[in-house]
């Protein structure tokens, strides 16, 4: 009897795993298809540059206040934590080096991208989801207007362009913030800190750090578009889509960061 139950349980587990795997690969295939269709429409964007510029403004300029606040505290926290960890073990002349490496390679790009994902991918998912629920996407199709060309591709391009810009801006703000933190709350002279900053600074690592945020930008826009398109039902469906979009974009940013780190070793 127990053996039979065990076999049944194993069967159900196997079925659930296969079902889940099929569902996962189905999502991956659709996501890739969306990516392909966006890439195919890129040449057409030059005919509607205004739409892309509007999206860049909405995604880039309107995100500045949030990014600034986050960057200020990121810089300050990095310095404070580094001082705490270094105390008694590492000479303080390396403080600037540690902060620079951390901000330029990981904290700056990844943290800023995840914060932008929280704002932008949810906004895109909510917008596309509301349009889907309100039949606006169907209305576009009825008017022979390609939603990929007029909605998804401009948003993706805007994110790919603006996320690196925001990251560079955030890193600058974080450095300034870290300098003020050093000046007012840490017993390290400005000269020592700035010397440390320059000590092992490698422009290529900064370039890689900024370049990978273009990939993060594409991930942010596409997860928003994809989960917006998957919206079903009413307001509740839109809420579910936005949650899924932000979760997926954060996970994919970390996965992409790991893969890029492996490739650039």
């Amino acid at each position: 009897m127990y053996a039979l139950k065990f076999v049944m349980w194993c069967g159900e587990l196997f079925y659930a795993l296969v079902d889940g795997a099929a569902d996962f690969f189905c999502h991956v295939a659709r996501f890739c298809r969306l990516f392909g269709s966006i890439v195919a429409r890129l040449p057409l964007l030059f005919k509607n540059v205004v739409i892309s510029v509007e999206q860049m403004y909405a995604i880039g300029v309107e995100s500045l206040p949030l990014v600034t606040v986050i960057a200020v505290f990121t810089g300050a926290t990095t310095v404070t934590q580094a001082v705490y960890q270094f105390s008694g073990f590492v000479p303080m002349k390396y403080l600037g080096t540690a902060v620079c490496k951390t901000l330029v390679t990981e904290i700056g790009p990844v943290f800023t991208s995840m914060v932008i994902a929280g704002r932008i991918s949810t906004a895109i998912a909510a917008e596309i989801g509301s349009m889907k629920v309100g039949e606006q996407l169907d209305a576009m199709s009825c008017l022979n207007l390609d939603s990929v060309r007029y909605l998804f591709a401009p948003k993706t391009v805007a994110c790919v362009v603006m996320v690196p810009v925001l990251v560079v801006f955030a890193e600058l703000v974080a450095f300034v913030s870290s300098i003020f933190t050093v000046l007012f709350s840490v017993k390290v002279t400005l000269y020592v800190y700035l010397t440390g900053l320059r000590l092992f600074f490698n422009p290529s690592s900064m370039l890689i750090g900024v370049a990978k945020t273009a990939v993060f930008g594409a991930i942010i826009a596409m997860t928003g578009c994809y989960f917006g398109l998957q919206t079903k039902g009413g307001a509740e469906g839109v809420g579910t889509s936005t949650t899924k979009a932000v979760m997926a974009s954060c996970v994919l940013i970390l996965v992409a960061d790991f893969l890029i780190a492996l490739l650039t070793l």
Partner: protein
Amino acid sequence: MDKNLPLYAAPSAPAPLLRIEHLKKHFGNQLVLDDVNLELRKGEILCIIGQSGGGKSVILKHVIGLMIPDGGRIVLDNEEISSPVKRSSDFNKVRGRLGMLFQGAALFDSKTVGENIAFPLREHTKYSNDEIASIVTEALEMVGLKQGFQHKMPSELSGGMRSRVGLARALVMKPEIMLYDEPTSALDPIMTDKINELILSLRDKLAMTSMVVTHDISSAYRIADKIAMIYEGKIIFSGTPAEIRATRNPYIQQFIRGQRKLHYAVSAAPEESVGLDQQVDVGALKQRLAGGSRAFSRRAQDQSERESHAKLLDGAKFSEVLEDEIEHSFRNQEPCALAVCDIDGLAALSAEHGEAFGDTVVREIGAKLFNGIRGTDFAAHLGSDEFALILTKTDPGNLFKTVDRIRERMSAFVIRTQKGENITATLSFGVAMADEHAPDAETLLLHAREACGLAKTNGRNRVEVKTA
């Protein structure tokens, strides 16, 4: 061969502009459309009615190419535009000939009214900005919106205005066929009337062909040249508004009268009941009725009541139906009359020819009465020799004539005795109208019975109308 399609086309009849043939659609395991066949001629307005979730909008989405059918095909001007083997991208060529007004208008929230209307023009035409602005103004005027609306955002508009802007957006591309998805749902009666007026004016001014999905039956009566009713994925009726009013199909009558319960009896023989709506599967409907709610007609639940006599409502059901009809008549300001009739001299007939013959007379007269009324009327057997007819939408001026015609027909009805004699049984009728003097079933029945008593006193085989 499909029985829904005509065997031949009359030489004078124009060829259909749009044909939907054997359309099928599943959502998962659920069959949403099951062998839907419809035709739309140029300049015609076809209304598709049915309950919410019945698949009406799904038909429109197939016509406009938003959905690919699982079976069947859609033909526009003898060219197949949609079928399971056609890709949605193939549809782009013909989509310009079709326009659609969505439920809620589906305006682009981030754009102003003017930008909404201009969007398709900017992308598909080479008009200059000035020309586009003038087309937008013209389109807004056509739908009854004055200048100044171009700069408003969709969120600033009322439901009716949004519908108009949605219509203007669809019209700027000059479609041949306009599809409307619930254009008047959630609108007040005045705005509903304006939208209906607009649909009619587009047909008159632009000879536009329209397919309207609605569950607003009064709007359908107002605008439709043809009405099709969908039920459980099938088209169960297709005909003119007059034909749908006259149909005896119980479900259709329940729907068009907005009744909570299904009071109408189902006739034993399909050909008696179906009449104009030949597509109805009466057997299936009866089975559904028999297995369904207790509110359904008793006759449909009981096989033994397949006899004609059993088509009459019984006393309890009669009271319920009469109450409903009186309420309906007051609500819609439509006349409702009650005629009560007694068989003259039934006791003497029974005494002379036996009780069994008396029962036969009652049964035969009941059947004759039932078969003689319109699909929208009701007949009831109140007990022994007394019957009642609920006459809906009967002009009060013609009430006497109408009932007298029934009386005359009944007096010519011959019943043969076991001995082979031919007997004619006459009826005395008393009629009363539901009005402020008879606002409920009890009073109306009392008035009709008083009039019937008067008819008997005044010499039998006659009609008396109760006057206030």
